[in-house]
């Protein structure tokens, strides 16, 4: 298994700019939680609507999942396309004993590492803002990473089929952003019309958001199993289809 070599290659490149990267992953949640959570949240007194928690708690937990989800999506677009088509790093790797499966799993593994380095500082900021109150809440980190990886595997599978980057504009405008807005990050999905609620249940981000909220600020119930299963299934299918697509692409 050579997937670890891909992770090492990426970490070597990443290491050069880790300070900037770390700074941004702290700055992001600080700004979001201040503006939306505290700023907007101070105007919202009715905690009933948010499952009995403050708007800050509701928003912070949703935003954690949404951040990893979006970051997972982005990581599987241009950076992958660049190595696949423009710089042709994957062709170089394939001339060695490294295989297509190694490349896919290695890249996905590395995306997992970057999601972790996004989720951990985010979680730290949440703790500072007083959103976290039990050790159980730490599970929010793997939950958020899982949501991001599921999304990344699917987007990677899609990237492997693309001939140009034009489709990404559509992907972000019509899929990723609507998911971000309508999967319960900013407001509970019971505010949506009935069909919208059904649709939300089918989207991966909704399951990620719910999962993070359950372990952090709500009570964990049996639906958590369903959320985890959904995300794992998406990850598994994305990975299988992704390896197949990438093989067709790189080894015609």
């Amino acid at each position: 298994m050579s997937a670890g070599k891909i992770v090492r290659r990426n970490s070597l490149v990443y290491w050069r700019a880790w300070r900037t990267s770390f700074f941004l992953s702290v700055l992001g949640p600080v700004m979001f939680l201040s503006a939306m959570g505290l700023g907007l949240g101070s105007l919202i007194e009715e905690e009933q609507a948010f499952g009995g928690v403050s708007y800050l708690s509701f928003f912070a937990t949703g935003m954690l999942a949404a951040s990893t989800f979006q970051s997972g999506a982005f990581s599987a677009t241009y950076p992958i396309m660049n190595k696949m088509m423009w710089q042709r790093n994957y062709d170089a790797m394939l001339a060695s004993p490294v295989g297509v499966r190694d490349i896919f799993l290695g890249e996905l593994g590395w995306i997992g590492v970057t999601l972790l380095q996004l989720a951990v500082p985010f979680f730290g900021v949440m703790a500072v803002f007083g959103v976290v109150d039990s050790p159980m809440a730490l599970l929010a980190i793997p939950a958020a990473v899982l949501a991001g990886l599921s999304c990344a595997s699917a987007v990677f599978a899609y990237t492997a089929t693309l001939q140009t980057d034009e489709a990404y504009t559509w992907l972000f405008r019509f899929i990723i952003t609507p998911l971000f807005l309508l999967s319960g990050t900013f407001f509970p999905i019971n505010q949506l019309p009935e069909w919208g609620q059904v649709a939300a249940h089918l989207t991966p981000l909704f399951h990620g958001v719910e999962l993070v909220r359950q372990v952090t600020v709500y009570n964990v119930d049996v639906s958590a199993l369903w959320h985890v299963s959904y995300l794992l299934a998406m990850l598994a299918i994305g990975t299988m289809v992704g390896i197949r697509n990438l093989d067709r692409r790189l080894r015609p």
Partner: protein
Amino acid sequence: MDAPPVPDSVALIEARGLTKTFGNHVAVDGISFEVRRGEAFGFLGPNGAGKTSTMKMIGCTSPPGGGALRVIGMDPIAQASEIKRRIGVVPQTDNLDIELTVRENLEMYGRYFDVPREVAAARIDELIEFVQLSEKMTSRVEPLSGGMKRRLTIARALVNQPDLLLLDEPTTGLDPQARHLVWDRLYRLKQRGVTLVITTHYMDEAEQLCDRLVVMDKAKIVAEGSPRELITRHSTREVVELRLADDARDQLSASIDGLVDRVEWLPDRVLLYTETGDGILTEIHDRGVRTDSALVRRGTLEDVFLTITGRSLIE
């Protein structure tokens, strides 16, 4: 943990009726050839003749579409990673890792091949010296010249000490100095016993480097032999190039019959294919043909190539 050496009697590459199709397009159409240990073998042909597709099948990055292929005695599908461990690939377009330095490129590639760290370190020092990039060791790849990138790619392909080196158009796009430096390094590798497989559309490159070559055209092999053999078989030892005024052309065409093996009338020149260029030139002048300019040169692979594949532009 090196694999056992292959006996010398085994051909390093053996292809029988090898085929590759992409949809309706036949890229390689039933070609057969053999590459022996220690030789420099060339695929010569115009763009789109199927050279790169053939190279990718040999390099195990594209599965054969039909026919039989053995590389270093192994099956390119079932034993792809074993084969890849023992070959080096210099692709047509550089695919160096531009986010890494010169040295890191080699280190990382050594890791892809599981070369132990200390072994790799010593080998990389040697390789960087060999391709004359010692001064650029810590430089990023981006600012390097085309020739330097090519040399780095060659060094990278040698990091696993391959038995077989595949070079797809190794000097396309390089200036003359850079080309000669690459040729010189490849020649040295050959002397060390590395088997080279080279694709090119440069005739001088094929003549300089290849012991044996095949000419590919429209997905098929159309000729095979050493550069000398091919010239003897498909062209002549010498070629006389004449530039003539129109009336001299008429004069020449009236008196040339039977003098030379073949005459080719081009808009700007007339080519006479013959074994004895100087003799023919004297003979023509004796017959009163006035030439504006006349040049006797050796027959080249270019003559072979144009004879076989024709002069019309292939695209």
